[in-house]
């Protein structure tokens, strides 16, 4: 439908300009989000690494951690921007696909339920 196509187009534009969200904090020298520090950062802030946090922080290895390739967090901003845009499209595909499947599952079982 036309309306939906227009909304998808807005999403693609958002993905293409997403590196703004990478540049702004860097330019303004802003730190991590409050409560989203790494264990190392916490250690610097309070002088020790909380024991439970140290054990659990690395419980999951995300494949595209921090919206870039593993080990490339210090790369040039232009490289990071490329991965950021790619991550945005992966996100659109995954969220769109997930939303589609969930809606199919939810509305699909409607027919069976009603006699």
């Amino acid at each position, binding site marked *: *439908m036309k*309306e*939906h196509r227009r*909304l*998808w187009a*807005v*999403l693609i534009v*958002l*993905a293409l300009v*997403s590196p*703004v*969200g*990478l540049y*702004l*904090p860097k330019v*303004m*020298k*802003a*730190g*991590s*989000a*409050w*409560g*989203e520090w790494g*264990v190392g950062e916490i250690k610097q802030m*309070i002088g020790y690494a*909380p*024991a*439970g*946090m140290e*054990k*659990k*922080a*690395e*419980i*999951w290895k*995300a494949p*595209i*951690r*921090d*919206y870039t390739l593993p080990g490339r967090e210090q790369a040039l901003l232009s490289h990071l921007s490329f991965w950021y845009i790619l*991550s*945005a499209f*992966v*996100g*659109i595909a*995954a*969220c*769109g*696909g*997930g*939303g*589609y499947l*969930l*809606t199919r599952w*939810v*509305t699909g*079982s*409607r027919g069976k*339920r009603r006699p």
Partner: protein
Amino acid sequence: MHIPDGYLGPPTYLAAYAACAPLWAIAARRLREKLSARRAPLLAISAAFTFLVMMFNIPLPGGTTGHAVGGVLIAIAVGPWGAMLSITIALTIQALLFGDGGITAIGANCFNIAFVMPFTGYGVYSLLSRLLSSEKGKAVAAGIGGWVGLNAAAFTTALMFGIQPLLHTGADGRALYAPYPLSVAIPAMMLAHLTLAGAVEGLITGLAVYSLRRSQSAWVLQAAAEETAQ
């Protein structure tokens, strides 16, 4: 606002999962009963939309960063229960693929961002839009709803962080999980969100509602919300 792994002790994150389970079930049942096939793609679009909005980090007062969510806009478009499911999808993808928010904390993050935010923001919007019934008035109501919704989510997130030292402090006085008490967590989170992040959320919500209503997209906003609301 995405709580990572290791910040919450098991009692908190398990309780959050337990709180979300019936909410997810109710949301699924509401949509099964009320979502029309024509509007079904809006759920997928909403999930991708909130995922993208959360990528736009902005520097906040206090030297930290934050971002808008778009959660109240989604609640206005697909109803608060639809918003709960679509934001849940985005938060789950963020945790699994991008390490943004913890695996153990998916329940907690969904409670704050996918439940508290759309429901408080949508509640404020529906109350205010009865008083401010002009086109501009509705946009203002949506903007205020966005601001309230984001801050409500920031507040419950701060509560979850802040109760950790109360629940889990070792014999040596050291925190086991998130180390900052309520007296630190609440002011820090709220300073950042009451000001800039909330303003951005409110502005996005208000402008989007205004332009969607003007561009003949009224059916996205009105009928869909009526279908899935309450």
